[in-house]
């Protein structure tokens, strides 16, 4: 019987973080302007998901840990 789901939760979240699609440059209608990064509707909804917010917190903490490890 599974009594400690921590490892599985951590693993699943790490996998979800790895599989996150990157932002694509979407060219706007302006002819002369540089292409700007545009958030799609799905991306906006994605940020509202608790799992995405958790992933961002974990990313921040992991970066801090890396800083500590590397001195």
């Amino acid at each position, binding site marked *: 019987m599974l009594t400690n789901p921590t490892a599985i939760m951590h693993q699943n979240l790490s996998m979800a973080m790895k599989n996150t699609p990157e932002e694509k440059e979407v060219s706007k209608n302006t002819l002369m302007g540089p292409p700007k990064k545009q958030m799609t509707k799905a991306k906006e909804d994605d940020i509202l998901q608790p799992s995405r917010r958790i992933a961002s917190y*974990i990313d921040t903490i992991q970066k801090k840990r890396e800083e500590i490890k590397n001195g």
Partner: protein
Amino acid sequence: MADIMMQPPLDAPIPGHSLTKELGSRPWQQPAQYTTVEDALDYYIPRLESEEVTEQLLDVLEMGIPVTTVANTMQLGSVMEGKHSVDVGMLILPVLVELIMLIADSAKVEYTSGLEKDKKMRGSLVDLAVSKFNEEKGMKQDLPISEVDDEPLKVTASSSSGLMSRSI
């Protein structure tokens, strides 16, 4: 380990034990105090940062208790106290693990994360299947060639006709 698993669970509650108290008398039967992930983390982070808790935490980690066990115990205790729901507890588990590891790293304490690739730790069926496949693959590679494929493959002619057609 196997002996422990084989022992009958004599300390388990008897069926219906949860119904012996009035509904709502337990903290976890009340609405949770912190309903969002952010609220729950705001509850945990100052506690983890406090000197008293940090010292105890580092002692526990130095004893060799995995970080995952500590994190799970913390969130389970808070669920029982009615601080947050089980769902919020599951969501914040990875953050708690990372936070505890951050504290241990900053204190330069060696610890067991509990996230190592281990058959007993991984409940994921995919992981188990992959490790099993790798094991079998490794076993096949170890065998001498003569034992693996002694007989050449026989090509059998399969009838392309249907079930109801006349046999030729």
